[in-house]
C-alpha cells in the first residue's frame, strides 16, 4: 500500500490514529466525570458500557489496532529521523522546537507503559485484586467501579502514578494535537495561531480533567 511507504503517508497515519485515540480520551474523560455524581453515576455508566459487549469489543479492537499502528510507525519514523541526523552541533540551540516535540517517542512510549498499567489496574483488575469491581458488587448488583476507584486513589503511589501518567500524556498531546492538524493539512497562516492555542487549551483540559480524580480523592476533597 503506497500510503504506508511514503513519508507523508506514514505521518498521515500517525495523525489519524492519534486523532482517533484523542477522541477516545475525550469520551473517556467525559464518561469518567460521572464519578462526581457519586457511586450511582459511574456504576450506571460502567454497566451501560458493558451491556453491549460486541460494541465494546469492536471499540477495544479498533483502539488496539490504531494504537499498534501509532506505536509502530512512530518508532519507525523516529528511527529513520535519527538516522537522517547522525550528528548534532557543538552548540545546541532550538529556536522553535520544544521539549515535548523533541521527545515524542519517549513520552509516547511512557504513555504506552502507563496505558498497560492502567488496563491491568482498572480493566483487567489484576494488580489490586482485593478491590476488583468484578468481585465486589454494589447495592444494585452491578460492578462497584466507584469503590474500586476511590479505594485505589487513596493510595499515594497509585494516585501519583496516574497524575504522572496523564501528565506525560499531556506533554505528548501538547505537541501532538497541533502537529496532527498540520499533518493533515488543516493549516493556513490565518488559523495557525488559533490551532496552537486550541491545541494548548485542549491538552490542558485533558490533563486537569484526568488528574482531578486522583487528586480529589487523595486529598479527601471527594469522598
Amino acid at each position: 500500500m503506497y500510503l504506508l511507504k511514503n513519508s507523508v503517508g506514514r505521518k498521515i497515519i500517525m495523525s489519524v490514529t492519534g486523532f482517533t485515540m484523542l477522541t477516545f480520551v475525550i469520551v473517556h474523560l467525559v464518561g469518567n466525570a460521572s464519578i462526581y455524581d457519586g457511586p450511582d453515576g459511574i456504576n450506571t455508566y460502567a454497566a451501560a458500557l458493558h451491556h453491549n459487549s460486541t460494541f465494546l469489543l469492536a471499540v477495544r479492537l479498533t483502539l488496539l489496532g490504531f494504537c499498534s499502528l501509532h506505536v509502530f510507525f512512530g518508532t519507525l519514523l523516529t528511527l529513520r529521523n535519527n538516522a537522517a541526523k547522525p550528528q548534532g552541533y557543538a552548540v545546541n540551540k532550538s529556536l522553535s522546537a520544544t521539549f515535548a516535540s523533541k521527545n515524542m517517542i519517549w513520552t509516547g512510549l511512557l504513555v504506552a507503559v502507563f496505558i498497560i498499567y492502567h488496563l491491568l489496574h482498572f480493566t483487567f483488575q489484576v494488580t489490586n485484586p482485593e478491590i476488583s469491581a468484578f468481585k465486589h458488587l454494589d447495592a444494585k448488583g452491578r460492578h462497584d467501579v466507584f469503590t474500586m476507584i476511590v479505594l485505589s486513589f487513596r493510595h499515594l503511589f497509585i494516585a501519583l502514578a496516574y497524575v504522572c501518567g496523564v501528565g506525560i500524556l499531556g506533554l505528548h498531546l501538547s505537541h501532538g494535537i497541533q502537529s496532527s492538524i498540520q499533518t493533515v493539512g488543516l493549516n493556513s497562516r490565518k488559523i495557525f495561531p488559533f490551532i496552537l492555542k486550541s491545541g494548548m487549551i485542549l491538552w490542558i483540559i485533558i490533563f486537569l480533567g484526568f488528574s482531578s480524580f486522583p487528586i480529589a480523592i487523595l486529598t479527601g476533597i471527594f469522598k
Partner: protein
Amino acid sequence: MNLTLYVWRQKGPDKPGRLEEYEAKGISPDMSFLEMLDVVNEGLIKKGEEPIAFDHDCREGICGTCSQVINGIPHGPQEKTTVCQLHMRHFRDGDAIYIEPFHAKAFPVIKDLIVDRSALDRVMQAGGFVSAHTGGAPDANAVLVPKSYANVAMDAAECIGCGACVAACPNGSAMLFTAAKVAHLANLPQGKVGAARRVCMMTDAMMNEGFGNCSNHYECQAVCPKGIRVQFIAKLNREFMKSQTTTRRD
C-alpha cells in the same frame, strides 16, 4: 574587534573532523561574516597553513551557496539573513563563535564547511517542474492567474535552496524545501496538471535521498533566510492527500 573562532575542520568526506580554535584579530564591524573568514584565511595562507574551505558565491543572499552553522543556528543569529549578508556588527568584541557545516545524513561533508547538497537537486529532478515544452507555449495572458494566488506562489518560489531547513531540522528533513516547490506550482494553473504526480515523486525522492520525516518542530521556518512558512508544508500534505483520493498515481 577580536574574536575566538572554533571552526570545523575536516580534510575530506571520509576523514574525521573536529573543531579547531583560531583567533580573528582586527575585525571591523562593517565586515560581513564571510569577509571576516577571508581575513582569517589570508592569515592562514601567509603562515603556510591551509585556509578554511567554505562555500559562497553571490554574497548578496540570493544564490543559496553559503552554508554554515554559526553558534548552533544555520546562517547565524540574525533572522531572515544568509551568512553572506550577516555582518560582524551583530557580534561583540571577545565573542567565541562556533562555525560548523550543515549536518545531515543527506549532506555529506566534502571538506571543512563545504557539504554536498546534490540530494536537493535530485529531489527537484524527481518532479519539481512543469512539463512545459520549449516553444509552443500559449500566450502568457491566455490563462489568467488571480493576484492572490500569484502572490502565494511567489512567496513559496522565493526558496533559494540553501538547505538551512535540513540543517536546522532535528530530523534532517527536507520537507520545507520540497513543500516550497510543491506549493509554488500547485498554486498556479500551469502547475496543477502534474500536481498529483509531483507531490508523490518528490516526497518519495526525499525519503530515498536519506532525508528524515517532518515532525513539525518548525525549526526550518525559524532559520529560513527567505521566510518560507510551514503552512506550505500543510499545503504539501493537502496536495498529497488529494493525490491519493482524486487520481490514480502514475
